[in-house]
């Protein structure tokens, strides 16, 4: 355990010393420009980050498109049912002669009025 601790201390000490030496040697440099290695590494890292952010943003946009509220879902379902009912009705009406078709439609409208009337009252 003690040995491990000593190693840890040694590692930290070497890292600290290296960091301080690095900062002091940089001070000895007269140039007022950053090193090429620093510039290249920073450009590459920044562009990687930019790509990551762009990918994340695209995924987020996709999620926004998929996320719909409950009333939009209800409206969609109602529209789907209405389309199916109308299709069924048109098939039924086309198979009847015009007299029966008028009777069927009139009965349906009357039923709807009675139903709506009941809802209002």
């Amino acid at each position, binding site marked *: 355990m003690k040995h491990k601790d000593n190693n840890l201390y040694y590692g930290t000490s070497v890292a600290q010393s290296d960091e301080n030496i690095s900062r002091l040697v940089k001070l000895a*440099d007269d140039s007022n420009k950053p090193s090429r290695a620093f510039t290249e590494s920073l450009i590459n890292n920044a562009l990687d980050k930019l790509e990551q952010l762009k990918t994340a943003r695209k995924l987020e946009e996709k999620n926004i498109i998929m996320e719909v509220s409950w009333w939009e879902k209800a409206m969609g379902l109602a529209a789907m049912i209405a389309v199916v009912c109308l299709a069924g009705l048109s098939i039924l009406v086309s198979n009847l002669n015009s007299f029966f078709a008028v009777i069927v439609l009139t009965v349906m409208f009357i039923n709807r009025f009675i139903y709506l009337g009941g809802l209002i009252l």
Partner: protein
Amino acid sequence: MSNELEQRCWVGFARGDSDIWREFIGREIPLLYGMFMRRWPNPSLAEELVQKTIFDAVRGCGSYDPLRGSPEEWILGIARNNIRLEARKRASQPSTNGDISRYLEAIDTRPLPDEVLEREETAVLARSALGRLKSKEQTVLRARYIEGLPARDIAGQMGITEKAVHNLLYRARISLRRELKRTASLYDKGQYYETQG
């Protein structure tokens, strides 16, 4: 660059176009570095602040509005904000007083405070100590820390093996530390300029 072309570039910039950003970052790094160095003459801190500014800009890329100004003005605003933050951080820390040799004694255990690194005498001492090392030691330290080269590239430049580079670096660090402590103690005793003739 015509105004229209400039505007198109700015829109590409706001969208995060990689080519435009590569050119932009490459152009801005030396300008930002110079700006931070003028404020605090400390290359390590300047690098740190340049890095922070560039990453702040990348993260805030979506918030850039071409109608409000050029990308250069925008990133300078971010840099100025980082200077304000750094100044505020320093104001809240205790000031560093005392002889430089005291800080150099703790070089292996504690980070050298930025205020100490920014003293003119520290740069003079660092230059003087580095100048007293053997030519090979100076070369390897400059290549590693100033040019930021990896051991393999240094080995290629110096015509030695990678292992030899590591050994040389190790010896150079010890020599530099010894020279720094010696020069700093002379400086504190007021004998530094006498030895310089």
